[in-house]
């Protein structure tokens, strides 16, 4: 397996991408390098890794080996240790020497991402945000809101499919206008019914779906949105210091989901243009796609999993905006006690109210 090990051009120490500075920084000699510099510096190494991956892929085809292997062994370029990763891991940290390693071949050829949104929040900032959030949650178990728990937080680039679509759509609907008025002892209701028709050219961009099986879909979907204006052309060096996953869901696997979602959005837009009615009831809808553009993007997510009462809970933080999503553990004792307090307060208020009315 071809690997790329990003080291400091000055001192040779491991080089990682610093989200706070948006540059590559060496923790040892404190040198800083721009992303363009590192990409140019390592362009040969990255190409070599990609070519090696393609050769290995062809060799497996010739020997009729199964393409879908579950795990792969790679040799750490720093310490020489042999480490096993899953088939989708594209960047990781060597378990033994803790140096970042990018499995360049995994993100080459058809798996080469179109763009990447680099991490903007460092681990420390994310942990601080998380601790701030925990302080506001009264019913978390004592063990949870401890910084030590979040040292295990890992920055991961997850793969997503994005689609932009231009389409022509039309919709017919029944619109109702209802008005009421009163006259002495009677109330009158007038209902006017209309046939409503709208058609238009619609552009819908950045509809996304995760490109990785197995992970909690809700967590990966709900950690959005990302500001894609800050997305950069993909370079392997951005992955240094983080983990990354390559996709295992192809366009065909997610196209139905995405197309249905786009249709839903188009319908919402057309319905939104049918203003002035008390209610609108769509009857028919047609669409024709004019243009469709797909992109494969890696997005930054800080992930942490924790165990509580024998269950594993994943919690994700958007590596760009800090938006969080996940299931929080609850201290049932604290919650039950506070619920009882709420009940007592409600009892006192109801009783006082009853006394005033009696």
């Amino acid at each position, binding site marked *: 397996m071809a690997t790329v090990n990003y080291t400091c051009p000055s001192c040779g120490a491991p080089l990682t991408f610093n989200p706070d500075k948006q540059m590559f920084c060496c923790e040892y000699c404190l040198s800083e390098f721009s992303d363009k510099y590192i990409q140019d510096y390592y362009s040969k190494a990255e190409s070599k890794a990609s070519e090696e991956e393609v050769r290995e892929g062809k060799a497996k085809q010739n020997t009729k080996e199964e393409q879908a292997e579950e795990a792969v062994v790679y040799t750490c370029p720093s310490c020489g240790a042999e480490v096993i990763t899953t088939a989708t891991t594209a960047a990781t940290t060597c378990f033994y020497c803790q140096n970042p390693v990018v499995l360049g071949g995994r993100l080459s050829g058809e798996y080469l991402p179109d763009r990447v949104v680099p991490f903007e929040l460092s681990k420390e900032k994310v942990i601080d945000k998380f601790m701030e959030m925990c302080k506001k949650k009264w019913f978390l178990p004592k063990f949870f809101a401890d910084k030590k728990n979040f040292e295990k937080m890992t920055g991961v680039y997850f793969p997503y499919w994005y689609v932009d679509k231009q389409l022509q759509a039309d919709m017919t609907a029944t619109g109702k206008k209802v008005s009421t008025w009163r006259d002495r002892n009677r109330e009158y*209701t007038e*209902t006017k019914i209309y046939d409503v028709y709208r058609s238009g050219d619609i552009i819908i961009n950045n509809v996304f779906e995760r490109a990785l099986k197995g992970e909690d879909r809700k967590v990966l979907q709900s950690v959005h949105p990302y500001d894609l204006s800050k997305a950069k052309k993909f370079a392997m060096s951005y992955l240094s210091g983080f983990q990354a996953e390559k996709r295992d869901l192809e366009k065909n696997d997610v196209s139905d989901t995405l197309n249905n979602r786009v249709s839903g959005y188009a319908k919402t837009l057309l319905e939104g*243009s049918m203003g002035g009615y008390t209610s609108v009831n769509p009857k028919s809808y047609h669409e024709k796609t004019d243009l469709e553009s797909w992109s494969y993007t890696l997005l930054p997510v800080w992930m942490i999993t924790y165990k509580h009462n024998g269950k594993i809970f994943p919690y994700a933080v958007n590596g760009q905006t800090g938006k969080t999503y996940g299931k929080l553990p609850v201290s049932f004792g604290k919650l039950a006690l506070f619920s009882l307090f709420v009940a007592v307060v409600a009892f006192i208020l109801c009783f006082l109210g009853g006394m005033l009315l009696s």
Partner: protein
Amino acid sequence: MIRFSKKFTSIAFVLMLLCASAFTVFAAESDMLVDDNGLFDSNEAAKIEEALDSASLETGWDVRIYVADYSVSADNMEEYYNNFYDSSDYKEDGVLLVIDNDSDRRIIITKGDAMQYFSDERMNDIKNDMKVYLDDNDYYNAALTYARDVESFYTDGEDTDGSYENVELNKKDVPIIQRTFDNFGVFIIVIPIVAGIVFFVMTLFRYSFHGADNTYDLQGNSKLELTGREDRFVTSHVTSRRLSNDNDNNSSSGSSSKSSSHGSSGVF
């Protein structure tokens, strides 16, 4: 001698006055029987008074008989004579027998502590005891029986096994806490329980799905240019309904008595 006689006379006169005033004081206190209709003669009245005084002394209540010289309708007797008792300068605890001789109706009203000694069963007993004489129009013995029975009920103590449907309690006499629970007990118990459960469940739900779910900005990521637009009127219809008249609401004055708490034998 004359001087001694004058002194003696003066002293005697003063003593007589004192005795007379004492007598009148006693006389003023002994109006447990008010006979506006002349039902009893003086001898009977005196004996009845004595019996009533004895009962009053024994019980500490006002044990009274009032013979009315006017009639009140049977339906109104209870309320009328309950108010009569309240407006008169009587003790808080007492028993009043009202005799409306013209209409041949009687009623017994109990007040204060006396209510607790006059269960429904005892009310029936006293009425039955009196009826033995009333059937023969012997009001004198009926009155004496009344006084005797009142005293006997007191001596026997409160009838804890009896029913007290004859007693009508004024709201204000019921402790407010009990009144509150009587009127709103279900709500006072159920609402806090529901509030506690709802809070528990909603917090669990919030912690289970922490974070906003809807993440796609449709407005920011889309554009619509209308190329065709048509709104065609099809039809309309009008419906109407009659509004309910608020004046039709029953202005319920409530059947609750505005009078104070009391027990009653009912008209007999």
